[in-house]
């Protein structure tokens, strides 16, 4: 194997290799063997211990040790327990879970059954976004096949263990990624989170002990049994074992899904696997962790990626979205974009998230329009910190991260907006002007023809003019001009 290969496919081991609609291909790739072995050779306690030993941590964002979570649910006594797969991937710009369900649905089914055996549950539920029709369809096909083969249902592998899985649909609410909100949603309520404790492991779906893991976490489970906890723990770093799937997107050449061992650096991911920045532009920032994460910069490029390092850098692992930004991206706008998202997705239950995020957004909006003051920057920071400190659930507790991390890492850019009313990236519409550079204009009319609001005037072969009062700053003229005759300032 060559030196520059950075990826190892563990969770994605079958994605792109097998036909996701064929259980036979899954079985040929060692499928359901882990379930068979766990059921016939291990006690629930032993199997759970194997997961603890593997060091696997939740891939949905929190990074809580998966085995420990299982163990808590296992120890609670109850006549009925549930296994829930969180497939409500809501981070904009993340599609790991969708890809796994579309490419390898059986691995999730197998893992849920193992989980059921470990904690003593005979029923599983997959909570999946309605926006993922193909994933739903493939999951349904896989469930039918598994039932047909007797790998779901009663007396699985002749061991007397029963397990079956139902699908529940999300309906477009990011907050339902929070496990208590997800449970409320599965019960047919508004997806509002409730405070913990009680944790779902104590009182979850229908008040019964419930273990919730996300898709990628489950996809790792069969491998741990097939290859051993030790093998799994040998990948990655000491405190973050195994690999992590990232959805690389944004201004990067090789947009796509990658899986790297924990501890790989951001530089390796962006420049080696990702092929560097699109159109030869300059790298500016990488956003990890979705709306809960932060924007990291040049100085973080050599940080090995794991749960703890990312937190320390002011961002977080999140579910694995990784959006790369270049010199043309304004960090105030990016922060505002995320806040716009949070404001729309907040459930509205607690004050800091409901009102606080709205106010954060409004402050950012004022700043991006050139109407902010230094005082507003102080307010942003205090408000951001209080929202983190006082919000009820994970959404509010992390929503100011994009603001605080961009303030930490791109302070000059904020200052430029408030002190000079200038957007260094030339992105904030209210702070830019498109103008014709008269020396360069040849009167080709390309700009005027492409202007959507007809605000450019000028005869053919004569110098053109932009009517600033009508200009909507769409940038079409700038893009269409082949003579460098339009300037942005």
């Amino acid at each position: 194997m060559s030196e520059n290969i950075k990826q190892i496919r563990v969770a994605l081991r079958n994605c792109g290799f097998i036909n996701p609609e064929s259980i036979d291909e899954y079985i040929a790739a060692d499928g359901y063997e882990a379930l068979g072995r766990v059921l016939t050779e291990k006690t629930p306690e032993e199997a759970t211990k194997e997961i603890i030993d593997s060091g696997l941590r939740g891939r949905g964002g929190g990074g809580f040790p998966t085995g420990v979570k299982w163990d808590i649910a296992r120890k609670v006594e109850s006549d009925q327990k549930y296994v829930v797969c969180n497939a409500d991937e809501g981070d904009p710009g993340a599609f790991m879970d969708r890809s796994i369900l579309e490419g390898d649905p059986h691995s999730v089914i197998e893992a849920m059954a193992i989980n059921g055996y470990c904690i003593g549950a005979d029923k599983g539920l997959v909570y999946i976004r309605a926006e993922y029709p193909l994933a739903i369809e493939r999951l349904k096909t896989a469930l039918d096949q598994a039932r047909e083969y007797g790998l779901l249902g009663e007396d699985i592998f002749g061991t007397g263990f029963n397990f079956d899985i139902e699908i529940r649909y999300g309906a477009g609410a990011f907050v339902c990624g929070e496990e208590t909100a997800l449970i409320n949603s599965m019960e047919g309520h508004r997806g509002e989170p409730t405070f913990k404790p009680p944790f779902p492991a104590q009182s979850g779906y229908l008040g019964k002990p419930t273990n919730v893991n996300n898709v990628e976490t489950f996809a790792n489970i069969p491998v741990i049994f097939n290859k051993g906890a030790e093998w799994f723990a040998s990948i990655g770093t000491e405190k973050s074992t195994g690999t992590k799937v990232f959805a690389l997107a944004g201004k990067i050449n090789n947009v796509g899904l990658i899986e790297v061992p924990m501890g790989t650096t951001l530089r390796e991911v962006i420049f080696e696997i990702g092929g560097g920045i699109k159109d030869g532009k300059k790298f500016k920032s990488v956003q990890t962790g979705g709306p809960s994460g932060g924007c990291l910069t040049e100085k973080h490029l050599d940080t090995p990626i794991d749960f703890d390092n990312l937190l320390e850098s002011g961002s977080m692992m999140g579910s694995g979205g990784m959006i790369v930004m270049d010199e043309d991206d304004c960090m105030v706008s990016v922060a505002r974009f995320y806040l716009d998202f949070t404001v729309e997705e907040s459930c509205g239950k607690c004050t800091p998230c409901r009102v606080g995020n709205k106010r954060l957004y409004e402050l950012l909006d004022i700043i991006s329009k050139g109407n902010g003051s230094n005082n507003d920057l102080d307010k942003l920071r205090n408000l951001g910190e209080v929202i983190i400190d006082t919000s009820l659930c994970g959404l509010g507790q992390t929503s100011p991260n994009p603001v605080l991390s961009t303030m930490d890492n791109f302070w000059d850019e904020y200052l430029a907006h408030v002190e000079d009313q200038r957007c260094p990236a030339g992105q904030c519409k209210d702070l830019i002007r498109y103008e014709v550079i008269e020396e360069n204009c040849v009167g080709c009319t390309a700009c005027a023809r492409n202007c959507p609001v007809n605000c450019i005037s000028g005869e053919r072969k004569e110098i053109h003019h932009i009517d600033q009062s009508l200009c909507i700053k769409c940038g079409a003229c700038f893009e269409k001009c082949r003579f460098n005759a339009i300037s942005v300032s």
Partner: protein
Amino acid sequence: MAKVKSLADLKKMKEKLQSDISLRENSKHPEGMVRVKVAMATCGIASGAKDVMEFFTVNLQKRNVDAIVTQTGCMGYCYAEPTVEVKLPGQEPVVYGFVDIKKADEIIEKYIKQGEPVDGIIPVNYETIDKK
């Protein structure tokens, strides 16, 4: 289909399935099976993977190539969708990116039929669990 009643059942089933596949894929016979996998996840389909798969299915048969065309999940190369993996008997599989009908035609005519290299191969950039 018979139910899997025990771990032994499963293992038997797996061995049979694996030997079927290896028989097909490792055939030294020049007329042996060609295997084409089209990545058909959401982004592949959005880029036209369905048409590409259809093209391979219809044209390989038309042009008398003994091949199996299947769909698969996301290979991870979203930037290069649609992506197609082609495995000739006895050879390592190769993945092509940006496969449209024209490219598919070229792959059939040059690579599959004559074994000539065709541009657009995406280099393998990962290890599998078995190799690790």
